[in-house]
Structure formats: C-alpha cells, structure tokens
C-alpha cells in the first residue's frame, strides 16, 4: 500500500518531475512575455468620478493601441485600475497596494491635487515612479519628490501665464476670481493674480469656495460691481449647479465678461437648459472638446480610439460628455512610459531608478498619435511637461476654438531641480 510515508519509486519520480516543471515554468513564461504592469490610481468614485470614468476609457484605448503595436520593448502591457474614491488617505493606500501587493512596475493616473499630495510621499518611500495627470503646480514647485513626475499635462501655473495676457488684452483688467478652496484653486489664485498684475491689470476680489460645496448663490454677491472679468474655475460633482446658479444670479441683467477654466464645465453639456447665459463667454481648454476646424491629423484617430464624437461626447451616448481637456494626459503619459522604458532597457522593478533617469533625460515630445493634444516639451529638472493651450468661445451653445498659445508663452523659471535630489 502506498501512502505519503511509503511512496513508490514511480510516485517519487513523478512528484519530483512535476515539482521541477512548476518551478521552471514561470521563469520560462516570464522570459517570453511577462507583461509590464502599470498601476492606475483611479477616481472611480467620490467627487472625481466623472474624470475617473473618462480617464479609464482613455487609458484603455491607449493601452490597446500600444499592445496592438507590439507592447513596450516587445512585452505586453496591462493596467491594474484601483479606485481611490478621490480621497487622499485612500490614495496612499492604493499606491501601496498597487506597488506591494500587485507588483506593478509603476503607478500613474491621479488627477485631484489633494490626492496627489496625499499619495506622492508614499510613492517616494516605496521608490516607485508615480506619474500624475493632475495639472497642479505641486510637481514643478518642488513640493514632492524625485519619483513623482507629470509628463502628460501642462501645470496650472503655465496654463495661467498663457491666459493672462489674452484676458487683459481682450476682456478687461479688473478681475474677480472664483475658485475651489484647496491646493488646485490656490494655484489659480496665486498665479493668475501675479500674471494679471504683470499685464497691468488687477484682481479686485478673490472668492474661495469649499470643494464640497453644493450651493453657490451665496458667494456671488461678493463679486464687486466694478468687475470687468469674472474668472471662474470649479471642480467636483456640483459644477453644473455652479454655472446654473451663476446664470440665475446674473439673469438678463448686466454682467461682467466671463472667463472660465473648462473644469467648471467638464463632463457637462454646454447646451444644457439654463446655461444660455454662457453664450459668447470664453473658456480655457487644453484640448478643444468640439473638434476644431484646424485640428491636427491624428485628432480623428484619437477620438475614434477613445470613443468620442466630434462634439466631445461618448459615441454611444450623446449625453455622456467627456472630460476632454484632461483625459488626453493618461494617453500621453502611457506613451511617455513606453518611450522611457524602451530607452532605459527597463526589465523589472530593479530598474525603476534607471527608468526615472531615462524620463528625466527626455526633452522634446513632437506632435503625433502619441500626443494628440499637441507637441510638448519636458523639463527633466522640474519633472513637468509644457504644451500649448487654447481659448474657446461658446457660440451657438458649442465651444469654438478662437485662440491657441505657443509652448514658450507658458514657460517659467525652474523652482526646483529634482535631478540633484537622492532617490
């Protein structure tokens, strides 16, 4: 009788052989095509959910395009999406989980600046590259660490410095600002105030609104009557209430010129009833939601890949409007990762430091399907990318691009040199 204590010779041989196979197989498979694992910190729920929905779709589309073209360095790529509930504390746990439990090669995708601020220190401790798609000035300001980069989207400071001269020249010089009362809004407050002063204008009132606010009418009487331009930027699930109540407040009466960041209307249809007052007003857009007449040659392919029509809404549901001026950053960040991994000969987590150094060495990023929003310039010292910006006007309920800036207009003096910091 055979049992575990008295094995037969045949049994022993078979068990030994099976053991050898089990041990050798993963190594063999890995050498062939172990996928590169990219962790994606996603705002699937919480106040950033509308952005999260489109960040996921855009990243999936880019992933498919990259894998169809042979992956990264011949290896297939996979993305692990993990919800952070748009919450800073949960955010750092997500970075932890993606890196330690899931074994991701790097982490990317965060938008809301308070989540970036909460998660970046953990990425630094874990020594994992952390590529944010956030627009905040927090990366280039030097507040974060060598492992955190923003290669897919221009930061707020650069965006604003290109907008201020146009606002002063075309709309007016006495500006009142309405902005969310946290890191991202404070970037707007600080840099626009300085930028408009440089143009001979001034900010006559700054109205900070808590990011979780659901009712806005109460803030509008603080707008001084002599205001020439109302500069508004709002985020979160209540943006539609914000613009609607602004419209109700001014009604048919006299109102200042309106200049908004498209954040106030991301994922919102500009033709929504109650938004008629926006007709003729201007918005900053990174990437024009409504396909511009002079759009680049890759615009159509990008829209088709992500599933967005020429009005910037989902091809399957016209009411599902995209976060068009932000979501391209996930697409461009994935291609940036591909470029850096291939340049550094990245093989696994042991090469993470080499990977960051390869990213820091990148400078010129020309226009192409890899960068549908436009050509960019990466500053390895500040870990920040710079691209051109657009101004659109609401005409007949649609956003029509009226002005495009150059990359150079948005450049500013380096505030930090991350390359001198230790890993």
């Amino acid at each position, binding site marked *: 009788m055979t049992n575990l204590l008295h094995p037969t010779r045949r049994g022993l041989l078979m068990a030994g052989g099976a053991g050898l196979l089990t041990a050798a197989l993963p190594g063999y498979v890995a050498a062939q095509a172990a996928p590169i694992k990219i962790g994606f910190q996603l705002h*699937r*729920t*919480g*106040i950033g*959910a*509308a952005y*999260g*929905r489109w960040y996921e779709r855009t990243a999936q589309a880019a992933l498919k395009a990259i894998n169809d073209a042979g992956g990264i360095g011949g290896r297939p790529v996979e993305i692990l999406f993990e919800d952070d509930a748009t919450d800073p504390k949960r955010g750092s746990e997500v970075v932890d989980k993606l890196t330690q439990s899931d074994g991701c090669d790097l982490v990317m995708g965060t938008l809301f600046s308070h989540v970036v601020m909460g998660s970046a220190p953990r990425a630094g401790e874990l020594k994992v590259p952390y590529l944010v798609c956030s627009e905040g000035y927090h990366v280039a300001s030097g507040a974060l660490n060598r492992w955190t980069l923003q290669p897919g989207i221009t930061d707020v400071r650069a965006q604003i410095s290109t907008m201020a001269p146009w606002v002063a020249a075309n709309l007016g010089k006495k500006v009142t600002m309405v902005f969310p009362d946290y890191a991202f809004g404070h970037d707007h407050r600080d840099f626009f105030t300085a930028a408009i002063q440089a143009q001979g204008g001034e900010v006559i009132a700054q109205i900070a609104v*808590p990011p979780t*606010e*659901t*009712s806005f*009418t*109460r803030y*509008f*009487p603080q707008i001084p*009557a002599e205001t020439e331009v109302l500069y508004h930027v709002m985020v979160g*699930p*209540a943006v*539609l*209430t914000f613009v609607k*109540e602004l*419209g*109700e*407040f*001014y*009604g*048919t*009466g006299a109102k200042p010129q309106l200049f908004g960041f498209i954040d106030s209307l991301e994922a919102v249809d500009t033709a*929504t*009833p*109650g938004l008629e007052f926006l007709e003729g007003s201007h918005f900053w857009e990174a990437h024009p939601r409504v396909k511009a007449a002079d759009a680049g040659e890759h615009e159509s392919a990008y829209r088709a890949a992500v599933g967005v029509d020429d009005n910037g809404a989902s091809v399957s549901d016209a009411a599902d409007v995209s976060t068009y001026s932000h979501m391209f950053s996930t697409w461009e960040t994935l291609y940036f990762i591909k470029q850096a991994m291939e340049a550094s000969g990245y093989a696994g987590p042991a090469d993470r430091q080499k990977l960051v150094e390869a990213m820091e060495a990148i400078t010129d990023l020309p226009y192409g399907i890899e960068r549908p929003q436009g050509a960019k310039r990466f500053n390895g010292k500040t870990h920040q990318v710079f691209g051109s910006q657009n101004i659109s006007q609401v005409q007949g309920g649609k956003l029509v691009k009226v002005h495009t800036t150059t990359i150079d207009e948005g450049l500013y003096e380096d505030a930090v040199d991350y390359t001198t910091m230790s890993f």
Partner: protein
Amino acid sequence: MAFGPFLLLALMEGLVTAAVLALAAAGLSLVFGVMRVVNVAHGEFYMLGAVLAWAVTTMFPGPPALAFLAAVLIAPLLVAALAAAADGLILKRLNYDPEATIVATIGLLYILQQAALSLYGPNANPVTAPFEWRIQLPWFGYSGYKLFVVLAAGLILLALWLFMTRTKAGLIMRATQVDRTTAQAFGINVDRVYMGTFALGAGLAALAGVLIVPIQQAQYLMGHDPLLLSFIVVIIGGLGSLRGTLIAALVIGLSDGVISMFFTPTLAKILATLLVALVLVFRPQGLFGAKA
C-alpha cells in the same frame, strides 16, 4: 451690491435651505418622537429620494413638468415602502432598543449608500426642473423654482400638521408617542404605528430630496449634509416636537443664509454647531421639547 438687495438675497437663499431642512428634519423628529429611534440612515432616504427622482424623470417620456410630478408622487412612496421593510426586518427585531437601533441604522446608512453606488453609479446626474422661470429683480436674478420649493415645503408641512392634529391616524401616533404601553392597552397596534411612522419619516426625507434635486444633482454621497443639519435642527428644536423643528429649521436656515453671505459659510456651520452645544448644556430637551 448694496446692503438691502444683499440681505434680500441672503434671506431668500436662507428660506430655501430652511424649507428643505424643515421637511427632512420633520421626518427625523417624527421618528424619534414616536418611536424613540435615532435614525442615522435618515440622510440616505433623502439621497434615495433624489436618485429615484432622477430615475423616474429619465424613464418618464412626457414633458419635464409631468415627469417631475411623477417623481414627486413615486419616489417618496418607494422610499417609504423601503423604510417600512427596513422597520419590519431590522428595527422591530431589535425591539426598538435605542442603542441597538442606532448601530442598526448606521449599518443601514452604509447599505443604502453603497447600494446606490453599485446600482446608480458614482456620477452626479441632473434632473430638469419642472419649469424654467427666472425672476429678474433690479439687482440680481433668482430661480423661480427655488421659490416654488419654499412654497411646496410650506404646504407639505401644513398638511403634515393637519394630519397629526386633525386625523385619527395622527391621534393614534400622538397617543403612541405619549405612552406606548397605555396605547397598546387601548388596542392600538403599536407595531403598525411604528412601521407607518418610519415610512412617513423616510417619505418626508425623500420628498425633500426630490424637491432639491433640480437645484443640485443626484449623487450617492448627498445624504451627509442633510443628516447633520437635520440633527442640529432637531436637537435645537427639541426631539419629537414638530413646532420646535419648524422654528429651529427657520433659525438655522436663515442664519446660515445670512451669515454665509455676509461672512463665510464655515462661520455659519461653526455657529450652528455652537448653538447645538449651548442648547445641550443649558436646555437638553431642546427649545420646545418636553422634559424627559
């Protein structure tokens, strides 16, 4: 903006807050008064009202006004039915023990919130107002729908008051509130009264949610603020006192409107919370509550 119009706008905004708050808090107060249950899940009934209003108006084929009317009728009824089921399945089995029901309703809060997240999703969806009418004053414009909310809330509260004071059902509820055991001895089916009260309380919260949703948007996390403010109102007004709830809602709503306009919304919240603390220290039964 000059002082006069500024104050007028502050008062109008305050009235809207007060109206919605009074509805939600009346439900909370009723449930506590009659059942002695502190319903922590009350804000989720408000959220469900808003979410169901979105669902009904989305599915309803007719013009916005009719779709909204359908939502006003259907959403609170569905929420009330859900609350009745929760009462029978959970609260009754705990014998309405005050401590146990607090923990149970906390659980209910998360179940309802996460169910909304799973079934409805994380997005904020707008509901079209039944009418687009804007009042244009010389100094500012104002949404006509917001004034309608104040009017509607007033009428609903009046109906609630008539129900409680003029109908047999109201009498039975009040009798149960005064003394449960004696009411039972007189042949009142206390279990049914409790179920009806919990359903009515939830229905009022849901109605507040339906009224607010054309102004805000329906989102699964929207129950937090109304819960907190309802508790503030109910503690100040006196748990179980409808009159106290109404007056406290007006005080909190109007002071919130005025203080947040002339100073900051944060200061308004600080003062409201301070007022709760003072009431709890100096008059624990609330301004209009009966001594325990």
